[in-house]
């Protein structure tokens, strides 16, 4: 048997190796290029005190989680009990980024919403939702038009960012946070980052 005729078989087995491994990967997941890079700066209206704002600088010196959510997001309801339980343990501050509360809701016809009404509407809807489902957030801020979301590379809701004391993004969790992910990945990282000076 001449060696060169074995080449097709060899190449095929190599391909099968990749395909088999590929079955365990998720091709739809988009990894964040912002890991280990400074978080984009932002200044957004607070949900609890709409006349005040919260900026990235206000969180400097702490290790904290930024959770992207909206009242129209179905998957957020899945992770909400996990977040509420987390907030009761007071291990890590949780900031909620309310994302496109009004214009992201497919049932609202934006042509009927006056521009100046969008913020009050968002505040009302978000507050009502937190009141009925529980508020796990130390503070919630409103990203009405989704621009801050784009800066963070948000492409779906919910997503959660782990940001360290210097304001650098260290980890991004895509999708609802499960108790396993919290226990095995996120909380250990929080502990490690807190230990950093």
């Amino acid at each position: 048997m001449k060696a060169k005729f074995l080449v097709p078989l060899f190449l095929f087995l190599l391909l099968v190796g990749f395909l088999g491994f590929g079955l365990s990967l998720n091709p739809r997941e988009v990894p964040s290029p912002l890991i280990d890079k400074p978080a984009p700066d932002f200044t957004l209206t607070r949900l609890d005190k709409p006349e005040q704002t919260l900026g990235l600088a206000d969180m400097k010196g702490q290790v904290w989680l930024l959770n992207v959510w909206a009242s129209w997001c179905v998957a957020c309801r899945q992770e909400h009990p996990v977040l509420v339980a987390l907030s009761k343990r007071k291990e890590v501050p949780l900031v909620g980024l309310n994302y496109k509360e009004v214009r992201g809701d497919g049932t609202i016809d934006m042509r009927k919403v006056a521009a100046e009404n969008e913020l009050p509407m968002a505040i009302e809807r978000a507050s009502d939702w937190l009141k009925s489902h529980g508020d796990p957030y130390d503070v919630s801020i409103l990203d009405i038009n989704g621009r801050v979301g784009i800066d963070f590379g948000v492409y779906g809701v919910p997503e959660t960012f782990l940001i360290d004391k210097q304001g650098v993004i260290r980890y991004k969790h895509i999708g609802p946070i499960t108790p396993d992910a919290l226990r095995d990945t996120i909380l250990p990282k929080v502990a490690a980052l807190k230990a950093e000076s």
Partner: protein
Amino acid sequence: MPWLVGTALIHSLAVTEKRGAFRSWTVLLAIAAFSLSLLGTFLVRSGVLTSVHAFATDPRRGLYILGLLVLVIGISLMLFAWRAPKLAGGGKFALVSRESVLLANNVLLSVVATSVLLGTLYPLFLDALNLGKISVGPPYFESVFLPLMIPVVLLMAMGPLLRWKGHDTGVILGKLAPCFVASVVLGFTGAWLAGTMSWRMIVGMSLAAWVLIVNIVLLVERLGERPGAAAGVRLSGIPRAWWGMWIAHVGIGVFIIGVAMVNGTQTNLDVKMRVGDTATMAGYDFELTAITDAPGPNYAAAEGTLKVTRDGKPVATLTPEKRIYLARQMPMTEASLDIGLFGDIYASMGEQIDDTTWIVRLYHKPFISWIWFGCLLMAFGGGLAAADRRYRRLAARTAPDAGARQTA
């Protein structure tokens, strides 16, 4: 991928049949063509790639299909590795001959198929090796496919002009040089007439002209092979397989015209329209005469009526719809098409801006039917070649031999 490799296969068989040469290559192409079909099944069902073709993806199902792949393709390739050395040999032929051109095109077609496979799987390779996540889309495939297909089309047209075993280089160049010049001239003319003098347009039209001109020369030569015989005798003397090849190759020329024209000269206009408004695009006038309610069994719809005229003469009436399927409040657009021999016009409804105004999207796609027409010609040519009487004669001839062997 399977049709690229399949095309290489049927042409490789011509060389193997004539010269008994390159048989192991032909066998490998046959294995590859079927393997790529199986691979396609795996790719769309396993969830390994994000694809518009993927449906009902399930990694567990993917594992079963992968197992099937390993079984079928693995055994085929093992057989190949074991028996292919015995397939060596075969007759000789010159570097400038029909066989060489066929084989060169085989190499090129196989490279194109490999490139498509490479582009499709590369994101998976990088992701598996933790080298990042990339997308490979139309810009890549176009930049690889088009440059490689140009020599394929060039060789395809001239292949039948070359003799088996060997052809005088000077003679063939002498025949092809005027064809080449004429093609380039026609290419420039075609692009100029179409109104788009881009390089893509010129190359596309020149290639199409090359295919058509060389095929005409080929037909004239073939008909001239029996001097003195009547036209009918000459025509019927040409076997179906030859006609099949001729029609299929002409089909490729027609296909290229379609692609070049659509890509080079299509137009699109998005306008805000109220009932009574007119829009003009590509020499056609579109008047929105009405917007009516056209509910269906499971949807509500707004249907626009557009009267299309050209220089005042009516051309068509288009009725695009904007539907909302009630179950999930999902909006869908139903475009309205006017299909013509030299171009399609189509219109679709965009969003409703206010109570009386809608966004209407208008498209003009010249020569797009030629893409389908070219493919029909290729299919017809293939069918004609398969119907060649020589296959039945060969079967009849080997049958009595088989019978004799059995009784002996």
